[in-house]
């Protein structure tokens, strides 16, 4: 939670103090070092975007709550799902791209464009929520984002664990 709070502060600092040459240290989202030709105050700035790729697919059930890694058990996970989080002075945006061969979608509706969202650091694990509906899109657990979903049985939870690819 502290990490996310720090992230937000860092992101805001980046936006507000873009002329500052002090190096920002972010714990899990790599940040490109600001170029010297930073825009003047009031101009638009490029958002900070971190890209993630599916690392593991866990299948959790009441008997096996820690989950079984089924990533290599099904060929269609070879085309991994991707997600990204972009942070700019105007807000946070989430994008999701399903793997080309994955025959199901982890959300109730397909996202055609970036989704405005916000990071709730007041809960553990931190939750990335849609701004309009409050739906939890992902959580930040341990060292990465996790998208949890059900397919058919409510007793089985699938977890996409993402790793940063920036």
């Amino acid at each position, binding site marked *: 939670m502290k990490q996310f709070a720090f992230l937000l502060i860092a992101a805001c600092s980046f936006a507000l103090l873009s002329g500052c040459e002090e190096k920002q240290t972010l714990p899990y989202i790599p940040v490109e070092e600001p170029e010297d030709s930073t825009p003047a105050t009031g101009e638009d700035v490029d958002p900070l975007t971190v890209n993630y790729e599916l690392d593991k697919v866990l*299948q959790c059930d*009441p008997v096996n709550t820690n989950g079984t890694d*089924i990533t290599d058990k099904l060929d269609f996970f070879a085309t991994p799902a991707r997600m990204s989080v972009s942070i700019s002075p105007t807000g946070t945006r989430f994008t999701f791209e399903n793997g080309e061969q994955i*025959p*199901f979608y982890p959300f109730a509706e397909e996202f055609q464009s970036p989704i405005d969202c916000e990071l709730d650091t007041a809960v553990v694990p931190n939750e990335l929520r849609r701004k309009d509906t409050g739906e939890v899109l992902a959580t930040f657990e341990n060292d990465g984002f996790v998208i949890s979903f059900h397919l*058919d049985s409510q*007793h*089985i939870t699938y977890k996409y664990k993402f790793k940063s690819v920036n």
Partner: protein
Amino acid sequence: MKTINKRTIIRTAAAVLLMTAVVGCLYFDGINQPEEADANTVIEYDAQLRIQTGTEGTGRLVFAILAPVDWDLASNATLTLSTKNLTAKNQLYLDKGQTPPHTEEITGEVLELMPETEKTPATVDNNGLVSGLPEQDKPWAEALELCTEVGIGGNEGLENVPELKWVVWRSKTIFTITDDPNSNDTDKPEINIYATVHIKLKTGMTPSTFYMGYAYTYDQWGFVTGNARHAVEFKKLTVNPKAMPPIIKPSTFRYGDIFAVQFIPFMTGLEDTQDVYLCGKVLYNGGQIAEVTERSDKNRMEYISTQQVFERYIYPKEFFGLPADAVIEELHVYFTNADGSIVVQDGDQGFLIEQSAE
């Protein structure tokens, strides 16, 4: 010199016929044992017995089955006896002022195992005492093997026959079968007594082909060579290997989930096979059918050596090539080798995979 005239010939022939009738008095009318059965499976069937009028004898019914030793039929079989026509002669007794030996039919009497201490009679009277035969005064199971008219039937000389043994049961009821007041009255129609022995037994684990043996007599007589107050029949049986049903992981799942199908090859035709493939069929959207019958990398199963099982994870809609919104109603799977020559399944449909309620 005594002249053999026509009358003598007729009398002699009649006597021979009568003796034949007395000797050949117990019959199997049929045993509807299946010709094939799965290993380690309970099967049930009936043996139809017919006891011909004119047979004289009193005693408990003795019924025996020849089966592989490892089936342990003494523990894994239940035999029940029911009769028909047992009371059909009662009026004949009553007409003569005699008390009928049986006033009601036997229904569902459970036969008991013959005590191991019981032996076949040492002597029987078949128009003259018969004794000293190898099968006389012997434990019943041993006597069955020693009786040359019983033995082990067609199993003699057959290859790969499992070790067999006779297991013997007897009735609690003591039957008086033949005390027919009209047995010598040729004008009276013959009245047979019928019985059904319902056999319920569990086959063993080992696949094999052999002849099951069935024999019956009554305990005051025994299985005596040359004096056929017994009936015997052998019926071929092929015991097929039976696979354990597949294991599904996680155990709670629905057809719309990802799950693993695990196949245990032990004691199946695929036991020594390296490449095993998961095939199957689904019913979906109101009875439409989709099948996977080919053998490719898509359905090749992974061998998990630590568990000695083959495993394949599937997402059924993707595995069977169904549309994303398909609703699967039933799912069957079976297992086969690379060329499809060996198939392990449960019945014609394969193993039914049943989903959880929620």
